[in-house]
């Protein structure tokens, strides 16, 4: 039953509080494109993506018009390319990146994710070649995202891969130094990666997923903050309730748009990812929600507790609103993509250590953090290892997306523009972790893995 209050509330959320659908992402399996001839495989990849996702952007635009809600991104995730690269050991995996870029251009999507490898227990055929090709692949393409899973609760942490990824992140930054080091902004190192994540840069289409499906990622930090503003004196459990109700409404949008997209494209509906994904736009910040709860600035004492409550309330509200919830689902805390986080980092209130603590209670990890260009690869690896350990022990996804700002040091700023925003170079510890990283091997799976 329609009522005037509800109608005006919906319109206000969209118009004034930045409510939008952050992404509709089509997951496409490329397992049937495997070929020992890399040229043939690339042709198959291009043809399959274009045949499945050719009308994705137009369909997204149609839904935007129909419901009057913006759908910011239309994206594609594919089977980890390392699995295709495994069949052609003599081929250069960058050819796959170029084929994906060509498909992205034809389909008009803004990102294709899945230039990925899953090496949490060890490297199989194709994995090493793909990982080594990541710097070049991200240099010669614009819209391809890459991710590598280096650990899981079930298998422990592959420290050889951790060491390698420190080098790869640094090399990717060096290769794209002339473009504000944009390369590593499209590269995520995961522990416990999820197979149905619609959000970039970490999206890939897992092998357990169907041939083709549609995922939706919702957003709406601005709406949550606006709802809290109305109750300045509410207790914390009342605030949790308000967040739940708001998350419910936001997620209903995702469910509606996903179901409609699935119907129009004739593709099964995968999941709704209930995430609060910030943008650098005014009024679209997760940090500002935490500040609305009563912190003078995000990053000060109490931030972890506020974030834990927010993350939990978002899930509780959202899970009732959708028939299938999945992906990362929680609150994102990317530094450069969130106006409040940027301010807090510039002011020196938000530190790398606080961010690490926050990742133990939110849905992802150390995200879009700019570090000095002179950082040693082993230090990047050590940061990855710390973050992966949090994910492994807490049975949750954690990720690292660090951007070494080549030629810049603490106090400088790196500007990406657009949704990626800008970030101040954050200080890191100067003592070396090289000996630990160079040991190699594997951190054994924790007791939590023995659940059977």
């Amino acid at each position, binding site marked *: 039953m329609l009522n005037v209050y509800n109608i*005006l509330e919906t319109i206000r959320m969209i118009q004034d509080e930045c409510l939008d659908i952050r992404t509709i992402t089509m997951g496409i399996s490329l397992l049937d494109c495997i070929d020992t001839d890399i040229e043939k495989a690339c042709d198959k990849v291009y043809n399959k993506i274009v045949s499945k996702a050719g009308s994705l952007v137009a369909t997204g635009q149609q839904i935007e018009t129909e419901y009057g809600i913006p759908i910011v991104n239309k994206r594609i995730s594919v089977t980890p390319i390392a699995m295709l690269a495994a069949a052609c050991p003599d081929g250069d995996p960058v050819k796959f990146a170029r084929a994906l870029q060509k498909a992205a251009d034809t389909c008009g999507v803004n990102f294709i994710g899945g230039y990925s490898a899953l090496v949490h227990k060890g490297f199989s055929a194709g994995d090493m070649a793909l990982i080594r090709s990541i710097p070049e692949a991200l240099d010669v393409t614009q819209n391809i995202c890459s991710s590598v899973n280096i650990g899981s609760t079930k298998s422990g942490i592959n420290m050889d891969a951790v060491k390698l990824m420190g080098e790869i992140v640094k090399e990717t930054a060096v290769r794209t130094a002339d473009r504000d080091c944009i390369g590593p902004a499209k590269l995520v190192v995961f522990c416990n990666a999820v197979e149905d994540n619609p959000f970039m840069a970490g999206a890939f289409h897992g092998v357990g997923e169907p041939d083709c499906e549609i995922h939706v990622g919702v957003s709406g930090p601005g709406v949550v903050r606006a709802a809290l503003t109305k109750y300045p004196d509410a207790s914390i459990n009342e605030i949790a309730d308000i967040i739940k109700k708001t998350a419910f409404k936001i997620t209903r949008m995702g469910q509606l748009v996903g179901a409609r997209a699935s119907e129009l494209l004739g593709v099964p509906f995968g999941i709704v990812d209930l995430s609060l994904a910030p943008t650098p736009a005014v009024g679209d910040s997760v940090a500002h929600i935490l500040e609305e709860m009563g912190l003078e600035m995000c990053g000060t004492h109490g931030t972890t507790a506020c974030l834990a409550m927010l993350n939990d309330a978002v899930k509780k509200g959202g899970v009732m609103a959708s028939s299938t919830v999945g992906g990362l689902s929680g609150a994102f805390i990317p530094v450069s993509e969130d106006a409040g986080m940027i301010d807090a980092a510039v002011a020196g209130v938000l530190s790398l250590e606080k961010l690490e603590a926050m990742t133990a209670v939110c849905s992802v990890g150390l995200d879009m953090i700019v570090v000095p260009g002179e950082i040693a690869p082993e230090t990047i690896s050590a940061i990855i290892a710390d973050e992966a350990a949090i994910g492994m022990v807490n049975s949750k996804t954690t990720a690292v997306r660090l951007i070494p700002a080549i030629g810049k040091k603490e106090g400088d700023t790196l500007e990406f523009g657009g949704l990626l925003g800008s970030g101040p170079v954050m200080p890191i510890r100067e003592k070396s972790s090289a000996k630990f990283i160079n040991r190699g091997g594997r951190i054994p799976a924790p007791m939590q893995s023995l659940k059977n």
Partner: protein
Amino acid sequence: MRAVVTVIGKDTVGILHKVSGICAEYNVNVIEVTQSVLQDMFAMIMLVDISAIKGDFSELVDRMTALGTELGLSIHTMHEDIFNSMHSV
């Protein structure tokens, strides 16, 4: 199939006439109208039937948005499902 047209802004002569004129042009039947004028702010919500629409729904949306720009009003035309689904399970 029904849609909701909302018009918010400064009151001027002929808003209802112009909005319903566009509806008629597209063979869209107006089912219900609620409107209020608080001081000089005008707020109208119109429930319309779009099942026999002539032409594309997106054209109707564009025409309404253009009318809004012309009159300095905020006009939204949205499928009713968005309101139904957002506020109920």
